[in-house]
């Protein structure tokens, strides 16, 4: 007998089976390059770009929340999401993003291709977008994404399978989608895009897979690629003399650009950090300095050409990426750039030409080598002979991971999250195979004898002004505010506020999961909020294996002073969310 079938109910978008509103107000329509240029000075109520402003300072002048009232700070709302079904990196996903806030709407990316628009006053989900991530995509460091960019009515985000996509900021629908990396070569995308002029600029991830790092720029409107800048030169190109002349090493040279750069409109230069060379720990197969790995490259955004570079760890043998932020600041009329490197040293450069101004250690223990006041690097402990184990500080996660420092022009202090963890590394040569991890070593990171700090560093002398000690490394970005406060989360879940002048802990809240993200602040109708994504995961085996089993989490908390934040009765009485 032939079976008769009924029609199953029609397929629906999964998100529609929720309380998601389905659209957001058109707040992003008029976000332009010109507005982002003046983000901090003209509209401190918003957090318009990854670092809050092009200079990477992660400083907001908002001061409603300050040292006098911080003890009353309380959660205004929590947005949490979780995961569905089987997804890539199910054990390693983390919430690493820096939210973007435009006129009361928060745009945010999560793990596994999720992007959300959220009412920044109430936490109401306005729309969601899901980009499907292949289960088998190569991920060096977990299922993560560091954030979105917003301009001209669009939300830009990269995906783990190395697409850059533009979403309609009102509906969340995809407007264009461009592939910018090769998943078969171990490339992926985790960086928060940067909008400069009419371009959206993104970098590649995958430095542990032996690929060739690059920055790509796409037209905001069309998604057409404007340029690609490789961070490892081909034979004959400038810098190629720092690679073996007769080998194939440059083809797997690494130097990926997986953290957002900063930008100086006066110099018309992007300052973008580059990652480790490949293979990470086996330097014998890539003799030379290996430019432009572990460097900051100053890139012309109009054509993608490298104007100058400074290499922090020539011929890296410790996995000391230099992707971390270059903070732009000025002192005595000099245009400077500050960079806390994984290698444990704090560099100040002249950002007009890349000249070294000062280099000082900020790490607690540095045994891998030494950098003198002139920037001369002397390696001391490194994996050399096959099968011979060495131990060094800081380990491959560095004295500071990608998570960002902040700079307050008010206190003229830098605030850095510091890690103090060693690692044991044994060189193990392996043949390169495309799409397979290419470390050249066996690595185990210490699970004990570790600590962390928040350190305040004087901008004029690079000397430490205060420190706050933690029993585990500090692995989250710092936020500095005009309220003389410094915010940073701990791996054990506490979100803390410090007195920016003294380092005294003034407030803390246990968020239930470790912090590995970038908090931001914004205000709506005069009420200041501080928001922090919380969700422990990612490359925990690299930066804190002692907390591999800690609660995973997947929430964003937004805090405000009681009485000033959204109240339920407001929404109910108005019948709407805005």
């Amino acid at each position: 007998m032939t079976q008769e079938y009924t029609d199953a109910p029609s397929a629906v978008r999964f998100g529609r089976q929720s309380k998601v509103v389905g659209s957001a107000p058109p707040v992003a329509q008029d976000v332009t390059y010109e507005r982002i240029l003046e983000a901090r000075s003209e509209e401190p109520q918003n957090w318009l770009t990854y670092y809050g402003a092009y200079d990477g300072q992660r400083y907001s002048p908002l001061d409603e929340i300050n040292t006098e009232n911080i003890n009353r700070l309380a959660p205004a709302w929590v947005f949490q999401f979780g995961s569905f079904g089987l997804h890539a990196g199910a054990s390693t996903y983390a919430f690493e993003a820096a939210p973007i806030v435009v006129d009361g709407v928060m745009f945010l990316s999560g793990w596994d291709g999720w992007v959300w628009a959220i009412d920044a006053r109430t936490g109401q989900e306005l729309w969601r977008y899901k980009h499907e991530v292949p289960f088998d995509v190569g991920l060096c460091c977990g299922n993560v994404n560091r954030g979105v960019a917003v301009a001209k009515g669009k939300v830009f985000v990269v995906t783990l399978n190395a697409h850059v996509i533009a979403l309609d900021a009102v509906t969340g629908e995809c407007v264009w989608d461009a592939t910018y990396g090769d998943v078969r070569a171990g490339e992926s995308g985790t960086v928060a895009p940067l909008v400069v002029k009419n371009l959206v600029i993104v970098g590649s991830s995958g430095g542990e897979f032996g690929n060739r790092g690059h920055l790509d720029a796409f037209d905001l409107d069309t998604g057409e690629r404007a340029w690609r800048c490789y961070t490892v030169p081909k034979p004959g190109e400038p810098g190629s003399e720092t690679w073996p002349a007769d080998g194939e090493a440059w083809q797997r040279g690494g130097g990926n650009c997986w953290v957002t750069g900063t930008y100086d409109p006066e110099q018309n230069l992007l300052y973008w950090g580059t990652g480790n060379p490949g293979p990470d720990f086996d330097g014998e197969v890539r003799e030379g300095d290996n430019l432009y790995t572990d460097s900051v490259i100053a890139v012309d955004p109009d054509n993608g050409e490298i104007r100058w570079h400074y290499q922090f760890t020539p011929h890296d043998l410790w996995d000391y990426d230099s992707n971390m932020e270059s903070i732009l600041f000025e002192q005595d009329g000099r245009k400077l750039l500050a960079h806390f490197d994984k290698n444990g040293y704090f560099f100040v450069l002249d950002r007009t030409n890349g000249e070294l101004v000062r280099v000082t250690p900020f790490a607690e223990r540095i045994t891998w080598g030494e950098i003198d006041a002139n920037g001369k690097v002397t390696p001391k402990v490194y994996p050399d002979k096959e099968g011979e184990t060495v131990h060094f500080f800081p380990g491959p996660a560095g004295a500071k991971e990608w998570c960002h420092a902040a700079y307050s022009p008010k206190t003229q202090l830098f605030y850095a999250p510091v890690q103090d963890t060693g690692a044991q590394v044994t060189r193990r040569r392996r043949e390169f195979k495309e799409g397979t991890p290419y470390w050249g070593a066996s690595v185990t990171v210490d699970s004990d004898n570790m600590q962390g700090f928040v350190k305040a560093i004087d901008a004029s002398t690079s000397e430490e002004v205060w420190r706050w000690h933690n029993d585990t490394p500090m692995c989250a970005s710092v936020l500095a505010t005009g309220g003389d406060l410094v915010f940073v989360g701990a791996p054990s879940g506490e979100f803390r506020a410090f007195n920016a002048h003294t380092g005294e802990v003034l407030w803390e809240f246990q968020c239930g999961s470790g912090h590995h993200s970038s908090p931001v602040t914004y205000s709506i109708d005069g009420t200041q909020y501080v928001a922090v994504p919380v969700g422990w995961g990612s490359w925990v085996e690299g930066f804190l294996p002692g907390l591999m089993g800690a609660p995973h989490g997947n929430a964003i908390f937004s805090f405000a002073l009681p009485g000033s934040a959204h109240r339920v009765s407001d929404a109910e009485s108005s019948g709407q969310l805005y």
Partner: protein
Amino acid sequence: MTTANEKQSLSEMVSELGLDKSNNATIGRLIAHGGLGHAEEGPDGRMRAQIRIPLDEMIWDPSILVMPRGGEIEIELINDDTNTHCALMPSNGDKQWMWLPVYSKGTVTLDLDGPGYYWFSSNLGNDEGQGLFGAIVVLGDVPEEARLDRPPQTRP
């Protein structure tokens, strides 16, 4: 220890042990062990496929669906089981979800990138753990302009 490739294929060993049957070797059925099927590309360039849930097997058949390339695909889902299930399917934009009542059928349209593979499931109770997880495999390569400028490399 006997391993696949020495005497038998992995599929044969799994079958012999009963891992590809419901409540046999283990409680459920090992995921992605319900056969393999290929999507067909029509004259209009659209890819199409059909996937069933057979009676009492707690499995998608095929449980490995192969697409020759990334793009849009129409999949007809048929529930021949006498229990109600659902389909939670991967698709760019948002996941697609539908009820699959007893003896029902319906169509879902998905948009997926290649290359790579994705899981789909019935997200009721523990249908997933019992065997109702399937994979959609997308073949192909990324566009030429996205690839690295370097000579071809050795692969595993």
